[in-house]
């Protein structure tokens, strides 16, 4: 063993170029795999680390309407309490109200922090580790507050926080009843404090079965069968609210909520796990590419080493001994690469985190991490080394001492591997281009309204009461040009859609196909505030015109799917109520920029208006406008923190996930290409080396540098072209699969495939040319010396 190591070490040292190419390629690949590995591990940890994770569930809400099934995790207020009191299987149940930000004060210390309102069982369900206080009684009194460690430290320094009092800027005081450990980065919860849920405060959003307001979490007693339980509660909603026919609730494992959160037609249909699979496959491909480099370079070197092997065999080395020696060499190389990779990873992790917008980390203190790393490195070494070891060790001594190996088959194994490598690279290049193009395509899609300088403010506290005063003041001081109210966030996707509509000459077919997205508005200036284009008719003026309580606006798509001619002034029925169409607006994107635009129905209402939409004056800059708005809002609603969102930022967030995938594929395809080129570079070096004599002869026969260059590049370009022919259809097919998720999508043009192909050829050509030009420039008398 010792002897093997020594020989391996010397051999690596002797062939510095070869060793360098292998180490650079392998360590880059290992860094990539390492990053992908920790990212995946992190994703799998998400909300999957609680001590009782197998019995923790999130309540989901399933509603069926006109054949469309909608599944969501926002549930009705009464569900949690009834589930716990009436079903013995339920050990704990708790609701969580969405995250808000508050300014927390103690003495002179003020800390802005986000937190949730929850039911007392919440802490017991998840068994959050407690630092101070007792989890049994933590949120029992309405003025209790539970802090996380970091927040407690910033409020109270190193002194115990228990029983101290803090104030919210809305005026309420809370007594600290417990301190929890900070949440890990791998949870979808995002709170620094918890306070008891105050149903009176959130009642505006509804506390009956008709409205979905809260997240609901449950812990079942050990041994309970969740499927049976779900059957038992299938009629729960209907039993309590007879008018809700198509709605039911069911439990879904909390550990699955992060990765498997997508539902299609009521059935779980992937989610983030799809992204993980994609990235995981890319990681493996990169490792394969790096291993191929190793195999190719080692076997190419066989020609040079055949003499050494021959001598060893003649001296008495058995095949096994040689296999061992070559394996030692490859494992030693992997271990050196692994160490290099770890060092690179340490330095590059922050960069990677920035690209991904994540907080990944490597658990250095965990022995399992090290064990996995070492096993992984040994496996890679074996994988990369086993084929060359056998090839090299079977070389026949007599042959190897006499003549050089010959190339004759159409494609030898090495060339097959290069083809494989470049096929992968081509697939990744195409994938990157398609993803980028799709994002740009959706990004350039006409939004249909002016998202800039548009601010949305949640209507909370006294805002509703003073709405008119706020509006007048903001318009009078020229901060805003138009102000209106809406029931949903304008960029949101999930505005309710429902049926039971009828209109003049509606065929049953049209009625069935017309599923409306419904937007509630206050009926003052909606069109102007959003900056929509009114194609026909007028805006709703419910605010000044009481008769407009039945006026509706429709979008172009609605008119088209309804099949209406001259729609203005036409009546149409929604259930028993009759509405008049007063205006048609141009289509605008209300949901995902990747989906087709659905029929939209805008109707006025005095109730359930949750957002105030402000079109600010573009003559002033956004900061100044925002400051003005804050002053006015604070004046009328002093107890609430100023909450606002820029609509264009909300819109930009819709692209985040795709952009992340885009960045990931870009980084890793770049790596794949670099590693492939390293391998090609090394291989070209060996091939040219074995052909120096031939090159010399050809030069003496009058070949120009160009002739030689073409001669040497031709073989490699042939391989790359075969790789393109293999990779392009695969990429085309799989990227079409990916694009199928988007209704508003690009179509992969032949020119995209062609430019990816040309790119691969150019990259390969440049790589090979470095070697072949050098060979072509060598004076032939050097390679043709007879002595």
């Amino acid at each position, binding site marked *: 063993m010792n002897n093997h190591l020594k020989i391996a070490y010397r051999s690596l040292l002797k062939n510095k170029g070869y060793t360098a190419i292998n180490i650079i390629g392998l360590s880059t690949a290992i860094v990539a795999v390492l990053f992908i590995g920790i990212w995946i591990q992190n994703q799998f940890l998400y909300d999957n680390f609680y001590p009782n994770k197998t019995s923790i569930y999130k309540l989901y809400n399933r509603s069926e309407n006109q054949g469309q099934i909608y599944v969501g995790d926002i549930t009705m207020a009464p569900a949690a309490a009834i589930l716990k009191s009436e079903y013995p299987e339920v050990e704990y149940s708790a609701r969580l109200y969405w995250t808000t930000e508050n300014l927390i004060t103690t003495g002179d210390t003020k800390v802005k922090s986000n937190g949730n309102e929850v039911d007392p069982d919440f802490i017991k369900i998840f068994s959050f580790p407690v630092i101070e206080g007792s989890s049994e009684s933590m949120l029992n009194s309405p003025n209790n507050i539970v802090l996380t460690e970091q927040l407690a430290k910033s409020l109270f320094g190193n002194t115990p926080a228990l029983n101290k009092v803090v104030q919210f800027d809305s005026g309420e005081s809370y007594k600290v009843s417990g301190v929890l450990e900070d949440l890990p980065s791998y949870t979808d919860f995002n709170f620094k404090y918890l306070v008891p849920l105050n149903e009176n405060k959130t009642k505006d959003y509804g506390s009956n079965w008709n409205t979905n307001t809260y997240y609901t979490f449950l812990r079942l007693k050990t041994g309970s069968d969740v499927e049976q339980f779900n059957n038992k509660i299938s009629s729960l909603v209907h039993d309590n609210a007879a008018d809700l026919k198509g709605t039911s609730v069911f439990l879904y494992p909390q550990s699955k909520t992060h990765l498997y959160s997508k539902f299609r037609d009521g059935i779980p249909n992937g989610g983030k796990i799809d992204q993980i699979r994609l990235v995981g496959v890319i990681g493996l491909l990169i490792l394969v590419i790096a291993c191929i480099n190793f195999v190719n370079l080692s076997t190419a070197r066989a020609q040079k080493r055949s003499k050494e092997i021959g001598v060893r065999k003649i001296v008495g080395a058995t095949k096994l001994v040689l296999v061992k020696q070559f394996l030692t060499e490859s494992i030693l190389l992997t271990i050196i690469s692994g160490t290099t990779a770890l060092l690179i990873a340490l330095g590059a992790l922050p960069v990677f985190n920035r690209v991904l917008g994540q907080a990944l980390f490597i658990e250095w203190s965990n022995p399992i991490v090290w064990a996995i790393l070492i096993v992984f490195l040994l496996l890679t070494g074996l994988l990369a080394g086993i084929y060359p070891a056998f090839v090299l060790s079977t070389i026949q001594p007599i042959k190897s001492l006499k003549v050089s190996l*010959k190339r004759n088959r159409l494609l030898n194994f090495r060339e097959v591997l290069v083809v494989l490598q470049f096929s992968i690279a081509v697939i990744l290049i195409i994938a990157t281009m398609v993803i980028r193009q799709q994002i740009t395509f959706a990004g350039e899609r006409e939004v249909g309204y002016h998202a800039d300088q548009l601010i949305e403010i949640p209507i909370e506290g006294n805002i509703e009461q003073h709405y008119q005063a706020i509006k007048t003041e903001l318009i009078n001081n020229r901060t805003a040009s138009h102000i209106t109210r809406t029931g949903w966030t304008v960029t949101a996707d999930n505005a309710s859609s429902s049926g039971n509509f009828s209109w003049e000459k509606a065929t049953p077919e049209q009625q069935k196909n017309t599923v409306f997205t419904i937007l509630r508005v206050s009926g003052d200036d909606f069109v102007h505030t959003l900056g929509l284009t009114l194609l026909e008719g007028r805006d709703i003026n419910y605010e000044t015109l009481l008769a407009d309580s039945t006026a509706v606006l429709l979008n172009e798509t609605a008119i088209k799917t309804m099949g209406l001619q001259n729609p203005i002034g036409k009546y149409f029925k929604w259930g028993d109520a009759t509405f008049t169409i007063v205006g048609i607006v141009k289509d605008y994107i209300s949901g995902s920029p990747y989906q087709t635009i659905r029929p939209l129905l805008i109707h006025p209402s005095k109730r359930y208006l949750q957002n105030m939409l402000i079109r600010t004056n573009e003559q002033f800059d956004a900061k100044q406008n925002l400051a003005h708005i804050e002053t006015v809002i604070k004046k009328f609603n002093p107890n609430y923190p100023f909450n606002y969102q820029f609509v264009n930022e909300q819109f930009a967030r819709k692209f985040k996930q795709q952009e992340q995938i885009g960045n990931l594929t870009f980084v890793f395809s770049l790596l794949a290409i670099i590693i492939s080129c390293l391998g090609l570079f090394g291989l070209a070096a060996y091939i040219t080396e074995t052909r120096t004599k*031939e090159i010399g002869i050809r030069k003496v026969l009058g070949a120009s540098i160009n*002739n030689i260059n073409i001669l040497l590049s031709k073989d490699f370009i042939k391989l790359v072209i075969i790789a393109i022919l293999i990779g392009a259809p695969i990429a085309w097919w799989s990227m079409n699969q990916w694009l199928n998720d988007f209704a508003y999508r690009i179509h992969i043009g032949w020119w995209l495939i062609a430019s990816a192909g040309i790119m691969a050829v150019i990259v390969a050509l440049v790589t090979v040319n470095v070697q072949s030009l050098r060979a072509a420039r060598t*004076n032939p008398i050097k390679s043709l010396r*007879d002595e």
Partner: protein
Amino acid sequence: MIKLENIFKWYQVSGARSFVLKDINLHIEQGDFVSIMGPSGSGKSTLLNVIGLLDEPNEGKYYFMDEDVLALKAKKRAALFQSHMGYVFQSYHLIDELTVYENIETPLIYKNLSSKERKAIVADMLDRFGIVGKKELFPSQLSGGQQQVVGIARALAGSPKLLLADEPTGNLNSKQGEDIMSLFKQLNEEGVTIIQVTHSEKNAAYGHRIINLLDGQLKDI
């Protein structure tokens, strides 16, 4: 045809110049058959390479058909080489992967001849050297003498005026060597100027004159 004036060639060895060629002055007329002789390391091959434009002297003038070769641009020099010179090696240096036919054809490809012209010339060569039956064979399937015949056929395919041969019989037995030399003599009689490097007095005698080299200098006899 060839005029060398004060040719010097040296290598820098630890600061000092180590001369390979020292003040060579040489005149070779068209139709001549010259043998360069001398012990190992005397600079024979270097001189041949300088004449064959494969190597450059450090100092001196070289006129080939009244053209100042060393002042020419690389491209022109390559063209000159292609159209006027053929090279024959001691170890033949055929391309292992190509057949006899393809080996002879290679220089013609580099001269940008059309495939029809190439076919005619190669057929002519195969015929002339009596190797028509071997045209589909690979070099490894031929004897050394046969390989050298192919090497000469290849060198002559471009119909050069000057044939340069570096120990053309060095790897052959005496019978094969004699055949090659009489071939050379015949070629010379047909008008090809030949310069050969050789160790053997017997082979040198085939030429019209002998040039002796010792330590990079011409030795008058």
